[in-house]
């Protein structure tokens, strides 16, 4: 199993540009998450999904959108990039209530907005 995969690994965007961060998992997990990690701030939840077609906002959803058309994929869309969105983005998945304590993380996408 590849686990959780993310593309791209790195990206530099200009202010106002748009992009989609890709995330896929092959563990048949129902729950998927997007976090951002800023220095000294820990992981902040952006959006999450409890299954295909179901998504909801986390702590810091402004400036982002998500969709979940399949169990495997959970892309994150940035519509109008701003410098405040410079961060490392992690996608994660979990089995949900069956094993409530564990999340599996992808390798991250480092995004710089200038």
């Amino acid at each position, binding site marked *: 199993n590849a686990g*959780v995969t993310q593309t791209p690994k790195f990206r530099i965007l200009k202010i106002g540009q748009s992009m989609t961060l890709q995330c896929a998992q092959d563990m048949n997990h129902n729950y998927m998450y997007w*976090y951002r990690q800023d220095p000294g701030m820990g*992981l902040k*939840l952006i959006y999450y999904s409890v299954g295909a077609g179901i998504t909801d906002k*986390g702590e810091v959803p402004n400036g982002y959108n998500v969709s979940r058309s399949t169990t495997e994929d959970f892309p994150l869309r940035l519509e109008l990039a701003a410098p405040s969105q410079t961060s490392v983005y*992690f996608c994660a998945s979990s089995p949900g209530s069956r094993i409530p304590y564990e999340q599996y993380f992808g*390798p*991250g996408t480092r995004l710089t907005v200038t």
Partner: protein
Amino acid sequence: QKEVEQDPGPLSVPEGAIVSLNCTYSNSAFQYFMWYRQYSRKGPELLMYTYSSGNKEDGRFTAQVDKSSKYISLFIRDSQPSDSATYLCAMRPGNTGGFKTIFGAGTRLFVKA
């Protein structure tokens, strides 16, 4: 007040030392307490978890939860240079209280050979 507080460090210790990493929290609904390890430029990976109060041991690692004080700890015995990483505490309510996990800011640990 943040729901989870964790000293960001950095913490630098010599090889073989006992390391103590700690978090405090404010939400009494938290039931699952986890420690994740994150190597530089990698995603976090689950190291240990504890349900409710008590201790749990796994090799050189011991996790402790004191719910009365809202305080959790991770101890690393005989620390190795390969333990150099950022350690994130994480917590979530029981299954009836929602499933969102709250992470601490992480403590950077350096173990010197």
